[in-house]
């Protein structure tokens, strides 16, 4: 079951949706600011989780990453924040509440999130990010 509620009527564009996969329920929030995104990803609960900030650097292909609240750079969501900054080219504030022992769930959440970002038109064209990921490796 999937539910969407996004409206552009009042204030900033906010998308909220839920999705079920791998016997878990995922919740997503995407808030679009000017060249910034606030994203919340959660699995099976409505807790905020760890808070990360990531932003693209002018002289480095790999975006910077800071852990703002709870969790360190090796926690779930940290690499997701970096990839979000890389693929959108914007500053990212990511709140991630994902289990640390399940890469499958993390991978699913990231895939679903990028699918939505592509639908919203927030991800740069594939040629751009292929070039970015190639040079980052």
């Amino acid at each position: 079951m999937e539910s969407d509620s996004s409206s552009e009527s009042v204030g900033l564009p906010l998308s909220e949706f839920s999705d079920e996969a791998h016997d878990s329920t995922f919740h997503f929030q995407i808030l679009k600011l000017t060249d910034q995104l606030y994203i919340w990803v959660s699995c099976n609960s409505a807790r905020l989780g760890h808070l990360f900030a990531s932003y693209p650097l002018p002289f480095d292909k790999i975006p910077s990453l800071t852990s703002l609240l709870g969790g360190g750079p090796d926690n779930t969501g940290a690499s997701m924040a970096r990839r979000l900054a890389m693929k959108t080219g914007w500053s990212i504030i990511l709140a991630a509440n994902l289990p640390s022992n399940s890469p499958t769930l993390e991978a699913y959440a990231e895939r679903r999130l990028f699918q939505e970002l592509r639908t919203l038109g927030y991800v740069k064209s594939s040629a751009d990010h292929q070039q970015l990921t190639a040079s980052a490796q």
Partner: protein
Amino acid sequence: MIVDLPRPNSQEDVLVLLNALEAQDENVSDFRGTKNSLIRIMDSFPVKSKRATADIQGVQTELVLSGYDDSILVLVTQIGKMGTLLHAKKEEIYGGTPTFSVNILMGKRDEPLLQACARQVIEDISNSGGSRPLILSLGLKDHSPETLKSVVQLIVANKIW
């Protein structure tokens, strides 16, 4: 019977769907039984959010509030960016009056009025009986006391705690 209708997006859509089924076939009591669970799934997004737009000193101000299980996020922006990110929490003292702590997670550290703003909002959360910490994002054009006062009033007027 298979009804080809688009995926329902709201409670109204579900009710329209059920009524359409009922018009064709009387035997929808099974569906009626699941109506509430259908509506529950539709409305299941666990985080309640509120958005508002206001005019503060002639500047358009956007407000977004989200209530998570363990935190409250309040985002106020006049510049379209998150600006300074603050974390405020209540520190319970046994048998004493509570104290509040404010931390700057990111952004301007030399602006005490931003911290005062977070301090006032967390105090309002606490006075309303809440115990969740606050994450406050302030992207303001100016940091005058008048603006900060209006920002606090705007947040409190739209509170979700």
